[in-house]
Structures are given as C-alpha cells and as structure tokens.
C-alpha cells in the first residue's frame, strides 16, 4: 500500500475537492446534532437567514449587516464540517486502495478437506465462503479470507496490508500460522481453514476503521463534549438574559447581534475541530502501520502506566552473542581469540558467527594462512555438546563448561580457580560461559550474552519521563533476567514467566488502578493481550493473538508501543490545547462586542473598546469573522496534533498553557483588530 509510505498532503486537490462536497453534505442537521456546539451555530445561522429574508420582504432592518452576519455564521458551520471532511479524506483514500486489493476475489474450495495433502478443489466466489471452510491457496493466488494454515509452508507477500515488500514465511502450527485475506502467496501452497465470515475479515475491519464508519465517540471525547455543551448552555443563558438587562437599560437588542454574540462566545473552535482531532489521530496511527480496533484503545494508550515487553526481539536481539573472551592459565588474549576463531569458522549458528565477528573486529585475530588446509571441523551435537576443529595435531573444542572439562580430561576440582572464577563471574552477570580448550589445556572462556539493542535504554528513559514503567517479560532465569534488565534500563522484570504469571501480573497492576499495555504475538500471549488495556498484537503473530489484542502492528515491531502511546497522548493534548484556546478567546470577544452593543446607551462604556474598533457594526462583524476564520487556521494543528515531548507533566503543561492559554487570550485581540481594519478600509460595515 503505497499510501502508507508517503502521507497524502491535506492540501492536495485529491483531498480538498471531495472534502468540499462532503462538507456541504454534512450540513444536514440530523448529522450535525451529534456535535452540539456546531448544531447550535447552524440553528443561529438559520435564524439570522430567516431574519434577512423577512427584512428583505418587509424592507425594514439593516439587511446588509444581517446578511453578512448570516453568511459568516454559515461559514463557521461550513468550516467545521470541512475540517471533519478533510480529516476523513485522507483515510478514505487509503481505504480505497485497500478495497482494490480484495475486489473480485475467488477461492479454491477443497473438495476433500479430510484428506491431508489432497489438492483437488473447485473455484467459488470468495464472498460465499463460510467459517470453517478449507481452501487451497497456491503460488500466485490471493488469500480469499482470514484463516489459519492447517497444512503447508509458503512465502506470502503481505505488502497490501503492511506496505512491506519483503515476503514473509507462513507455516502450519506455531505462531506464524495466520494468513490475512488480500495477501498473495508467492511460492508453494497452503491449505487454509477460513476463520472469519466475508465482510468481517481483517481487511474489512481495517477499511471500516479507516473510513470512520465504525467510529464512535471515545470516553474522553464524550466528557469533553459534555463540557462544551455545558459552556454553550451557560452562554445561552448569559445572552438570552442580556436581552432583558439591555431592555431595562433602554436598548432593544436585535436577534442578529444576540446571535452573533452567542456564536462568538460558545466554544466553536474546539467544537468544530473536535471530531477531526480524533479522526486524524487514528489516521496518524495507520500511517505508523498500526491498526486500532477502536478509538477507545488509542485513547487508553495515552493513559498507560505500565508497559509489558517481551525480552526477545524487543529489548534484545534474541540471540546470545559473544561479548568477551576471558583467557585463563596465562594464555595470551590474542592466542585465545585465534583459537576460538578457528574453532568457529564452520559454525553457522548465530552464536558462532558472533564469535567470529568479535574475534576479528575487537581482538583483531587473524587466521594463520595455511591453517585451513587439512582442517577437519567437528560439528556441534546434542550428545557431545561440543564443536570445534582438528588441524594437524591441534584439537580445539568449545562448548558447555562440563563437556569441555571432560574433553580436556579435567573436572571442577582440577580445573583451577582461574578458570572457575571466570566461569562463575560470567554466570553471575547473567551471561552464558562457553569454555574453550585445546587438546589437554584450558585456554579460556567465551562470554556469551543476550545483547541489548542499541538505543533501547534511551527509549525506556523517555518512557520513564512520560511516567510509564517498563516491565520486561522473559523465560530466562532470574539471574540472567536481572542482568539484562539492568543493562536495558527497564524498571522491573518478570523472569521465568508463564502465560498465567503474565495474566496475574497484569491483573495485579490493574487492581492498583494502573493501565497496562502489552505486546505479544504468540497464542499463549492471547489471554494477556485480552486482559491488557492496550494489547498490541503483531501482524506476524497468530490469529488468536490478533483477535485478542485491540491493536495490530502491521510491521510487527514491538517497540512501536512507544509511538502508540505518544499518539494517544497527542490526541488528548490537542483537544485540551484547543479547548483552552477556545475558552481564552472569549475575553477578547467580550471586549469587542459588549461596548459595541451599549455604547449608544452608555457612551462611557466606549472605554471598554480596548481595541479601538471602527464602529459598532464592524466590531461585531470582526468578532464573528475572527471566530470563523480561526477554525480554518487551526485545521492543520488539529490534524497534525500538538507535539508531545517526554519532559514530565508539569513542564509540558506550563508550556502548553503559555502557548494555548496566553496565546488564546492575546491572539483574538490582534486578529479582531486586523479584521476590523480591513472591514473599515473596505467600507462594508
């Protein structure tokens, strides 16, 4: 999916043109009623429009002024619906390209599902598949629906879903047995049991999510909507009662100016942008190649207190690697390095390769040139637990400590304190000692350890600054786990973890009021993924894991949880920032409109006209225009989100309060004044 790789600019005509059309369709009051602030604005726009029509018919009233107010009220509503349409537009384009990947699919339904290996099948439309059907997928075929591989191994191109062009291997059994509808089998064949009904497959869910068809308000969005509706009500009371107070003071206010005052006071800025913020957040997640099954999960990600990470593949590379050579009995370091290098030349395991790399790069060991001639390599076997090389009369072996001791004709009592000390030091630090001996003599020990990925410590430090505790889950023994935990900088670890322990740990954290995120890929992770508040399943994982989690990471990269958390936080921050901005704006609007309304009755109130606005009408019009334009001006911010920095809550808040609180207080004073200057210059009010 090329669109995931490079995001479509919101300014491209491909988005803007359909968005304009959508924006007008969204004016339908039945849709707008979901957004109370903008709904009220639309009612007021209708009201003022009716007054304009009435005034035109009777020839009374200030038609030019009312008409301009009416127009700008409509623009306010339109800008809000436009913002939502733009936010949805990008997702729609992505959904379109997904949908293309699954049009007109056909399936090869197996005729003899009971006989393994049998590949005779009939071709039926994919849409008529039922859960439990067995289908055959061969090289060049598109997988007709989500399913579980029951037989076969094949390489699959999942780029339609993940955007990653390198094919992945899928096989029956184990944690790599799920296939996704819409992906293409490149080589070999698979027998697949269909696990979802057509229309409910992973791709269908993705399309639905992206298009926002299943979008429901998240808990926090609901709470914020209530605040905004409450504010709207409060200002409605203030404006309606102002009519009576003005009447007492000898001013009969018109509906037009009251409507203008009300629209500028109610929080239209955040009201107009609220849904765009959520949609854009989901969209950012999708561009990160993460699919969330609900907005609720994304929001919960922002609240996560504890992060459970699998050690293997996330924190460490997953293979033990040589980290150090420890010579014993007076052997030179270089001599040990060369001996180990020789012994490992034919060792194609990850451990063996890492020994070669370490010896050549760090210890600058070089092979004696003729040495390889006549060399006989001894491969590792589970019985001997040794591998090595025989060159002439040199017999070099490396392997488990006891096996090497036996090879050298020694035991723990005769090995010497030098050797035993080195072995014990390595074991205590969580590493694995690999003994090396030549014929009857111990040369030293290779320190094998789980290597922590570079940069991971900094990421955990960043998480800690966000207030998130990281917990490493590993099947290792506690000693090894503790060593890796301290090296990677995680806050806690769970050693020798079983699925039950993971589940218990999550429950314990949740009972303490904490929100837990975890990522996993195996079937045995499924209960924990389901229990966690945010469960991120790897796309490469099993169907069970993918069903249990509430997010799927298409790139299968577990550290992505950090970005997910950031996106969750960004959504909340953007909402908070625009709410603060919106409320702070009201101060300036009062100072623009109130003196304008009453200066005729009480000339002294002109002193409140701090901005020195041209006339009463231009003051009111400027406030309304500012109020409408600020929505458009903030669309990019709503879509991009307020930047998150892991600097701690207090620092973050003081910065945002300064920018959006103080900024919200000052900006409208400047904006309204500028618009007023323009209006006065044009002479339209």
């Amino acid at each position: 999916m090329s669109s995931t790789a490079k995001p479509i600019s919101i300014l491209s005509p491909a988005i803007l043109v359909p968005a304009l059309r959508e924006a007008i369709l969204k004016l339908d009051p039945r849709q707008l009623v979901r957004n109370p602030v903008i709904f009220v604005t639309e009612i007021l726009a209708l009201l003022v429009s009716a007054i304009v029509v009435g005034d035109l018919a009777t020839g009374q009233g200030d038609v030019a002024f009312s008409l301009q107010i009416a127009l700008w009220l409509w623009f306010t509503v339109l800008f809000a619906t436009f913002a939502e349409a733009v936010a949805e537009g990008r997702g729609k384009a992505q959904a379109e390209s997904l949908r293309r990947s699954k049009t007109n699919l056909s399936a090869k339904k197996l005729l003899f599902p009971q006989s393994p290996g049998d590949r005779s099948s009939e071709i039926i439309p994919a849409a008529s598949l039922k859960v439990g059907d067995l289908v055959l997928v061969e090289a060049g075929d598109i997988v007709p629906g989500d399913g579980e591989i029951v037989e076969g191994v094949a390489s699959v191109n999942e780029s339609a879903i993940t955007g990653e062009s390198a094919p992945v291997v899928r096989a029956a059994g184990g944690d790599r047995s799920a296939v996704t509808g819409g992906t293409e089998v490149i080589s070999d064949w698979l027998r697949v049991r269909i696990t979802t009904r057509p229309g409910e497959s992973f791709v269908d869910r993705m399309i639905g999510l992206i298009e926002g068809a299943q979008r429901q308000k998240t808990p926090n969005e609901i709470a914020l909507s209530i605040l905004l509706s409450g504010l709207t009500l409060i200002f409605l009371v203030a404006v309606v009662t102002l009519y009576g107070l003005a009447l007492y003071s000898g001013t009969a206010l018109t509906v037009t100016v009251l409507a203008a005052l009300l629209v500028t006071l109610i929080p239209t800025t955040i009201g107009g942008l609220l849904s765009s913020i959520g949609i854009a957040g989901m969209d950012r997640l999708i561009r990160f190649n993460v699919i969330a099954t609900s907005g609720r999960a994304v929001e919960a990600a922002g609240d996560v207190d504890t992060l459970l990470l699998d050690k293997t593949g996330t924190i460490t590379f997953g293979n033990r690697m040589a980290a150090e050579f420890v010579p014993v009995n007076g052997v030179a370091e270089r001599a040990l390095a060369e001996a180990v290098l020789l012994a490992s030349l034919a060792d194609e395991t990850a451990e063996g390769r890492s020994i070669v790399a370490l010896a050549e790069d760090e210890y600058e060991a070089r092979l004696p040139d003729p040495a390889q001639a006549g060399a006989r390599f001894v491969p590792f076997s589970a019985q001997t637990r040794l591998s090595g090389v025989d060159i002439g009369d040199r017999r070099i072996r490396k392997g488990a400590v006891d096996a090497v001791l036996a090879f050298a004709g020694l035991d723990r009592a005769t090995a010497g304190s030098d050797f035993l000390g080195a072995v014990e030091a390595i074991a205590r630090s969580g590493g694995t000692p690999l003994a090396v001996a030549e014929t009857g003599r111990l040369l030293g020990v290779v320190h094998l350890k789980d290597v922590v990925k570079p940069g991971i410590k900094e990421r955990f430090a960043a998480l800690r600054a966000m207030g998130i505790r990281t917990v490493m889950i590993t099947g290792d023994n506690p000693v090894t786990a503790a060593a890796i935990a301290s090296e990677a900088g995680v806050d806690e670890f769970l050693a020798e973890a079983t699925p039950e322990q993971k589940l218990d740990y999550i429950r314990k954290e949740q009972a303490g009021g904490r929100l837990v995120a975890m990522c996993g890929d195996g079937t045995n992770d499924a209960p924990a993924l389901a229990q966690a508040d945010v469960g991120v399943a790897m796309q490469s994982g099993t169907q069970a894991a993918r069903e249990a989690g509430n997010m799927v990471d298409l790139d299968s990269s577990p550290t992505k949880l950090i970005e997910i958390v950031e996106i969750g936080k960004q959504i909340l921050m953007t909402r908070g920032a625009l709410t603060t901005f919106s409320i702070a704006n009201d101060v300036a609007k009062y100072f623009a409109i109130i003196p304008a309304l009453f200066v005729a009755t009480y000339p002294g109130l002109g002193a409140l006209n701090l901005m020195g606005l041209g006339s009463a009408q231009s003051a009111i019009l400027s406030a309304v225009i500012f109020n409408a334009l600020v929505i458009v001006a903030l669309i990019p911010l709503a879509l991009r989100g307020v930047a998150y920095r892991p600097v701690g809550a207090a620092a973050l808040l003081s910065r945002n309060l300064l920018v959006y609180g103080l900024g919200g207080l000052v900006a409208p004073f400047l904006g309204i004044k500028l618009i007023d200057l323009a209006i006065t210059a044009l002479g339209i009010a």
Partner: protein
Amino acid sequence: MTLSGWLQIFILLIIVLLLAKPLGLYMARVFSGERTWLDPVLGPLERGLLALAGPGAGREQGWLAYAWSVLWFAVSGFLALYALLRLQGLLPLNPQGFAGLAPDLAFNTAVSFVTNTNWQNYAGETTLSHFSQMAGLTVQNFLSAATGMAVAMAVTRAFSGSSGVVGNFWVDMTRATLYILMPLAILVALAFIAMGVPQTLEASFAATTLEGVQQTIATGPVASQEAIKQLGTNGGGFFNVNAAHPFENPTAFSNALNIVAMLSVSLALMYSFGQMVGNRRQGWALIAVTLVLLCAGIGAIYWAETAGNPLLHAVGVDAAQGNMEGKEVRFGQAMSALYAAVTTGLSNGGVNAMHAALTPLGGLVPMLLIQLGEVLPGGVGSGLYGMIVFAILAVFVAGLMVGRTPELLGKKIEAREMKLAMLAILILPLTILGFTAISAVMPLGTGSILSPGPHGLSEILYAYSSAAGNNGSAFAGLSGNTPWYNTTLGMAMLIGRFAYLVPVLAIAGSLASKPRIPPSSGTFPTDRPLFVGLLIGIILIMGGLQFFPALALGPLAEHFAMISGQSF
C-alpha cells in the same frame, strides 16, 4: 490607601493563616472519627444523640442516602422555622410583643437561614422576638453551617477512599456542631461580651436623647448570635444594619475578631481537606488560590474607595478621606474594604458598611466575588466543595494538555463527573441572570428599585447574586420585602443551595467508587504553583465570564458615567 491600612489587612490575614493548620488538623481529626481532647465531655452527648436516632443511624452511607439525609434534614428544619416565625406572637420570650411574620416573609426568612444565606428582608430588632432569634435563627445558624461542613466532608472522603461510601450525614452533622461550632462559638461569644457586645434577654430600652427625643435602644442576646453568625458564615445579624451597628461590632478589635472568626473555619477546612486526602500541600494550594483572589478583591475595593467619588470631590468633600459614605468611622477604609471582600468572598453576608454606598467599582468587586461561586473561601463547607468543582473543571480542561485522562488526586475525571460538574456550574448563572433579567423588565421587579439607571440594575443583580450564592449580604437600596422578591429570592436561595449540593454529592459518589491511581511523573501535579495559577484562571473565566455583560450594564456603566460627571 495607607501603609497602616495595608498592615491592618495583612496582620489579620496572617492571624487567619496561622490558625489554618491547628484548626484544620483538629477538624480533620473530628471528621475522621478520631479522639479529641473534648471527647470526655462531648462523647457521651454525641453517643446519646445518635442512640436517640435509633440503631444503625451511624452506618456509612452512599451518596444518594447521604443526599436524602441532607434534604430531609433541611426540609424539617425549614418547616420548624417557618412555623415558629408564623406563630411568633403565641410563643414565649417576646418582651416587645411582636406579631407573627407574613407568609412570604416567613418563607423567605426560613429559607434564608436553612440555606445558610441569612438574607434579611426583615429588620431583626423590630420584627423578631428573642425566642425567634435564639430558638429559630441561631439554631439554623449552627445546623446549616454543620450541613455545609458535612457535605464538604462527604466530598473529601470521595478522594481519600475507594469503597463507594461517603460517610454518614448524621454523624458528620452532629460532630461538626458539637466538636467544632459549639466550642468555638462559646469562646468567640465570651470574647464579644468582653468587648462590650450585649447579651441579655431584656426588652429594648427607652432613652431620652440630649435633644430630648425619645429613642428606643434595641438589645438582646446579641453576642451569642454574633459568634455563630461569623463562625458559620451565616451573616444574619441581630440588627438590621448588621455589623455596622455599634452593639454588634463596637470596636476595631471586635471588628478584627469578626473577620478572623468568619474566615478561619472555611480556610482551615481547606487544610483539613489536604490532611484527609493525604496531601497537605493540596490544602495549602487551595488556600493560596483563595488568598490570591481575595487579596486582589480587597485591594480593588480599598483602591476604589480611597480614590473616592470625583463628583463629591467637585462639590468640596475632602478627597483625602476617599468615599466614606455608608462607612463607619471606627473601622475606616481598610477594614471596611477587608470586611466587604471577606464577607462576599466567604458567603457570609454580614456587612460593616453599606455596599450600595460603595463606589461603582468598589461595589462591583463584592458582587463579582459572590458570582465567582462563593469559593473564596466560601461558606463553611460549601466553599470547599464549590472549590473542588472548579478544581475538577481545571484538571479536566488543562489536564488534557499533559496527554492523560485528567485525574484529581488520583481519581479519574470522566463523563459522569463532567456532566454533574457542569450541572452545578450552570446553577449560578441560570438563577442569578434569569431572575435578574425577569425582575429588570417587570414592574413587579423594577418597582422596588430605589435609584434608577445602572445603579438600580446593580441592586437587583446584587440581590439575586447574594441569594443564589447563599451569601445574604444586601446591596441595600432595593426594597426587598415584597411578595415578588420574598418569593423569588427564596427560590434563588433554595436552588443555589440544593440544586448545587445534590450534583456535588453525586460527583462524590461517583469518585468514591473509583480506584485511586498512584501518581507518576506523567500525572499533572495539583499541589504546585502552576495549578494554583490555573485554578485562578478557571475560576475567573468559568465563574466570572458569563456575568461580564450584566456587570457592564450595572456597575461598569455607572463607573464610567461617574467619571464623565453623571450620577443616577
């Protein structure tokens, strides 16, 4: 403004601050059900009262049961007081032989005292018997204050526990009365008597003045009522002119005691809150918010009053005195400003100067202090729970900006809390602006106005602000003792008290059943200066913004007119 004036103000505020911690700790012990040094004396009395109420009367209640208890108690208190006022003529201790009150006035007065408002549409010394003052009003002075404290404690427990219960109203109310209000009231009353405030059951005296005119000098059990009037932030004075009367407030020292007595309990309750939720800094943060806004209010009144009225200066009144109209010379500008700010910030409503005679800006401040929601520091208890509603709004709006679901003291603020908080916040503008607008356009309302123009609007606005905010101070100038005002002001008081209190208790119930999330570095700390500043901003914007148009047409219009040489 003078240095000595400011010194007087600050010395009094410092005394109050010094009292906040010991008094706050004591009250926290009382409401946590712990032993206090008064137990040997009051313990048996408390147990006896609860035993009278029947077995199980002290069981922990959920919010709904708690709210029903509050309402039931208020209704019975209202009915008893209403009957007492109506039947005054038949009851004892009535040396002046006052008749029963008219239905609308009795309704207004009973509501006024049950809601801790103490709006006085009657002149105490010429309307009420000693029995009505003592058995009626003073009893409600204690009970309405104790009710406020009880509700505040229910809200406090919502943050400290997570079991869903919020305490027991009958226990809280009894303990507030017995352990806190009674002992303090006895102390303060004795101090007032020492300062020359009368305490007698005698009838009024007749005296012949130097000019040979007959004068009636009213007296009665003044000191005892004065003490609880301040401690319970009731504000209903024995005399019509309240604490400006030389018998209620004879000297500068009695004035100081008045101010300390009314401020200390409300402020100390904020400290108790911090103590009970396990974060004393939180208590100090709320106190800081209060004092910053209160000092701004005091400063504004003090400045406006010493600047005086240019119209009067033009006709030869000494400008150096500032505006002394309606003020007592024995208190002066500073103490009048302090009293005016404190009594309105506090929901007390007693006055030692006539607020209607303040300069327009000097009069705007007390009005705004009431409209901000009576949280600075507000009535005993009611101020604390009002402040917590604002704190909930503050963490919600700004808390989002740290990228987490907002939480206050570890309790998540979600849709239900927001709904209830907005409901509570809506009450004040709806009641104040609604009734004011109706009264401003109907002859029933405008007929009572003494001065036309913007000042008249201020009179109405102040009356409804005072009633809905349960303050009870009057701008005067408005003839409030009419059926229209007696009834609508009574309604405003009821709505302002109970329509606010029930959603607040519902918030308490909702929070009480939530787990308390331990703080992390991602949590927004609510006990730092940043939060203090934020809360001040939220109180000003959410509490004050909606009143700006009304204030512009009232005191602001009058102020600018005064500057340009026009008076109303």
